[in-house]
């Protein structure tokens, strides 16, 4: 019976060998276990034995050839039935009944533990890198909140959001959403707080002259704006005149320990926010200007923390140089007073006994009648006017 004699695997990591010498030639007989050839491996020369008593029919491989395991080396004729029915050597895929299942099909042996226990549903899954990037780009938590249920927020997502936020400023729907929020607060304030209103015209000449001298002597980075003088005047007045700095809660007035002045900042496309300048009565103009400038920058970049709005104990609002002359504001609850200023306008005015052109500012007060009344209110406005008349003392 014809049998193929193949190069056997001799070691766990042997893949090939070089035939160095045949020990038998066609026509020779070979006994079971007798060496039939010698091959060179990594480990050195090794005899290859025949597994049967057989006769050599033909030699296929010539000495010197490097062959891989399973290569047919010779043909043998085995007397009678081969001692071992030829099981197809594994040169071909093992013909055994059950081929080993391929590992790729293997179910994951050790279940890969969930990469991280999923945080509470809805909680913002912000990767650390994304968190830091969001901070760098000044993305407000509110903007990110919308991502809460959209799976893990990565760096690219944050960058995409920031770009989107930059491109559309306050998106229309966000603006309208904000307007409705402000509207409802105002309606409630109007209904619940018994407002009284006072107006007073203030000669802004001294303040303006002082400011021009102050700014002319300083580089751009250190100059002040007119609104800041008003804010400081209101802060000092609120510290001295009782009843305008604090909150009305649970049916009674709570006097605030410090004077945090909510200062109006216009939002692009309408609406105002008034984040607080903390301890405005005690800080010098230079510090106040720096802090106010920072507040504006953060509002523009869209990442104000809601907590910063709640700190104000009194508010100063204005329409700036572009607005009208007189503004009648509504109190921001739970505060008890708000001061409004219009545009500084050049008007004829009796100044030091002579009618002349003076820069005039209409200052209005809206206050809570449950806490103060017109007489105290007018004292408050006069204090503001006196402070503006001596700007060097602000």
């Amino acid at each position, binding site marked *: 019976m014809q049998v193929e004699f193949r190069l056997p695997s001799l070691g766990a990591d042997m893949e090939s060998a070089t035939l160095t010498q045949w020990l038998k030639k066609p026509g020779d007989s070979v006994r079971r*276990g007798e060496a039939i050839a010698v091959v060179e491996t990594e480990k*050195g020369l090794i005899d290859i034995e025949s*597994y049967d008593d057989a006769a050599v029919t033909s030699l296929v491989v010539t000495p010197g050839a490097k062959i891989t395991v399973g290569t047919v080396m010779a043909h043998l004729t085995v007397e009678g039935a081969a001692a071992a*029915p030829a099981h197809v050597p594994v040169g071909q895929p093992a013909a055994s009944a059950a081929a080993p299942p391929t590992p790729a099909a293997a179910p994951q042996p050790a279940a890969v533990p969930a990469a991280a226990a999923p945080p509470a549903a809805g909680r913002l899954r912000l990767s650390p890198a994304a968190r830091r990037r969001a901070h760098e780009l000044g993305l407000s938590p509110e903007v990110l909140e919308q991502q809460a249920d959209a799976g893990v927020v990565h760096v690219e997502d944050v960058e995409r959001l920031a770009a989107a936020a930059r491109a559309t400023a306050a998106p229309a729907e966000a603006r309208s959403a904000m307007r409705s929020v402000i509207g409802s607060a105002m309606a409630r304030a109007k209904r619940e707080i018994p407002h009284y209103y006072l107006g007073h015209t203030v000669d802004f000449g001294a303040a303006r002259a002082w400011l021009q001298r102050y700014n002319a002597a300083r580089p751009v980075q250190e100059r002040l704006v007119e609104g800041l003088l008003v804010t400081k005047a209101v802060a000092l007045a609120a510290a001295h005149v009782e009843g305008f700095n604090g909150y009305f809660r649970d049916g009674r007035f709570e006097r605030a320990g410090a004077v945090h002045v909510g200062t109006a900042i216009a939002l692009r496309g309408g609406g105002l926010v008034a984040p607080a300048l903390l301890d405005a009565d005690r800080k010098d103009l230079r510090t106040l200007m720096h802090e106010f400038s920072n507040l504006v920058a953060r509002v523009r970049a869209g990442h104000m923390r809601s907590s910063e709005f709640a700190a104000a104990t009194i508010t100063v609002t204005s329409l700036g140089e572009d607005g009208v002359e007189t503004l009648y504001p509504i109190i921001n609850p739970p505060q008890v007073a708000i001061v409004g200023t219009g545009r500084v306008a050049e008007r004829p005015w009796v100044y030091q006994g002579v009618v002349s052109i003076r820069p005039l500012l209409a200052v209005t007060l809206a206050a809570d009648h449950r806490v103060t009344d017109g007489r105290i209110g007018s004292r408050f406005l006069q204090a503001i006017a006196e402070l503006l008349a001596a700007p060097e003392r602000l």
Partner: protein
Amino acid sequence: MNAAPPAPVTRERGLHLLREMLRIRCFEDRCVQLYGELKIRGFLHLCNGEEAVAVGTMQALEPADAVISTYREHGHAIARGLAMNPLMAEMYGKESGTSRGRGGSMHIFDAHKRFYGGNAIVGGGLPLALGLALAQKLKRTSGVTACLFGDGAVAEGEFHESLNLAALWRLPLLFLCENNLYAMGTAIELAEARTDVSARARDYGLAAWSVDGMDVFAVEDAARNAVAHVRGGQGPVFLELRTYRFRGHSMFDAQLYRDKAEIEAWQKKGPLITLTTRLKELGLMDETDYQRLEGEARAEVEAAVDFAERSGFEPLAELERFVYAEPNRV
């Protein structure tokens, strides 16, 4: 030690020992071919030439005795009575193998036969054997533990620690040193300052003597005497069985460390030739007996190969089973 007289040589006893040795020889020759055909992988250490040690020593043991072996364990397992089908299936790594296919050639286990496996770390089995024997002693059973190892183990620290402890606690332990003169590629005289292993065992206070490992009758007689000594409570015994392996240390061995003449010299006094020559001289057997026994052995091996070929592999889902014990399983 007052050794009992050697048992009489009869046809029945001779043919039984010959059959056992032929079963081992045929099993392992077939393994060489299967390894060549990539059916068996990993390491494969054959005891070709040392069959008399396996068959001779196992005759002296009772089913309740314990056996612990090394990675050259096929002969020990077959002689101990492990069935060939699961043994061959284990070589294939099939689930129906002696260890669910997980151990392969070097790690064959059979709790029922109290065959506590091969150990791939040289000398690793000796401390285990101390424990098996200690349990027999503490449980007051008459059981004996047989610990098989090669001359390589003599160089390991565990050898010295184990012999001392066995002697110190007078454990029912039979040390069976299969001295085939080579520890992998290092001849014993290149590894040991004193190569008389049994003499060194005596230094530890053990009864020890040396036996011709190629004469299966001599091995059996020595083993029976040793077991009687141990089972009689006279303490551990150390048998040095001088033998030789005709094939490489393992499959991938160019045997640069010894020359062919030495191998051929030993093959002339191999265990099978030694036994058949003696039986034929005594007229207790002839060539037809040999052909019959060899044919039966080959048939048994082929049946085992078919069993292994047809068996399936263990499903991947079982990979992590038995990392920790499953107490409710038998």
